[in-house]
């Protein structure tokens, strides 16, 4: 009887330990918060365009194409790091990339885009961070993929690395 009682906590201990090991081994970052907007339609918002200086309504930019939304700012170093990958993605047909310039200086952004290249079809200004809150953004850079039906399919927090670039590339191919 006593042996049986001791066996039970031991088994529980092994179970808990194996769960911890499993969580350690799988690829996951606990500080990353999953987006609540996946499989939902994109938020409706209005913003001024940095390029045309005109007002843009979000429904105008979604025209049956796959869309990549990238929140960026010139003051954000990781945004600069991922810029090359976004440039590469801009060569892709059937994909439109929109930049959302988060709490930034418009003049600096224009210079930045001239220096590094402009991968965006349009850049929308988010002066006070309200558009970012609408998209559930909590730290830039953040990148979203919206399918041709206007449904958000993917969100990545942090800079696009080679690995993430491949993932995004595959997702766009899949959506096509």
């Amino acid at each position, binding site marked *: 009887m006593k042996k049986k009682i001791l066996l039970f906590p031991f088994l529980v201990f092994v179970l808990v330990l194996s769960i911890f090991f499993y969580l350690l081994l799988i690829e996951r970052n606990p*500080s990353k*918060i*999953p*987006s*609540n*907007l996946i499989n939902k339609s994109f*938020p409706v918002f209005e913003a001024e365009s940095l390029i045309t200086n005109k007002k843009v309504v979000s429904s105008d930019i979604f025209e049956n194409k796959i869309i990549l939304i990238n929140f960026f700012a010139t003051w954000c170093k990781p945004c600069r790091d991922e810029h090359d990958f976004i440039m590469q993605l801009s060569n892709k047909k059937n994909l439109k990339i929109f930049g959302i310039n988060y*709490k930034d200086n418009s003049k600096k952004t224009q210079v930045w885009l001239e220096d590094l290249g402009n991968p965006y079809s349009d850049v929308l200004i988010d002066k*006070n*961070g*309200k558009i*970012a*809150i*609408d*998209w*559930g953004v*909590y*730290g830039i850079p953040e990148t979203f993929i919206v399918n041709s039906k206007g449904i958000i399919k993917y969100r990545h927090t942090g800079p696009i690395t080679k690995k993430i670039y491949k993932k995004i590339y595959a997702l766009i191919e899949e959506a096509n």
Partner: protein
Amino acid sequence: MKNKKKLLVIISFFFVVFFLNFSFAVEPDEILENKKQELRARNISKNIRCMVCQNQSIDESNAPLAKDMRILIREKIQDGKSDKEIYKFLSDRYGDFILLNPPIKLKTLALWLLPFVFFLIGIYIIFNQNKKFKKS
């Protein structure tokens, strides 16, 4: 003896500092003139997690995103939105994680019920041991 007194003073100082945690981050330019509305905003802010620092409410956090959210909450209150609508607006965008009090849902049931289950198991074990002890 002197050292003991000193130690006591130091310990009580930390004790007071630890329990008098009145810190909040609301800046003067954010505060609404209507006191009732301001109180509502403060109450909501205390229940909203700062997504950047994650273990602070936006009421206590100095992160820029927390400030944006505090301003947004005040704007929504001024627009006549109810507390429920404001909580929903934020949790629709950031998920239930943004609420410092997780709602009771099928997904969070274990979170709410397990403490009671463990409590009952604990009581059962204590009673059982007591019985055995008395018998012996």
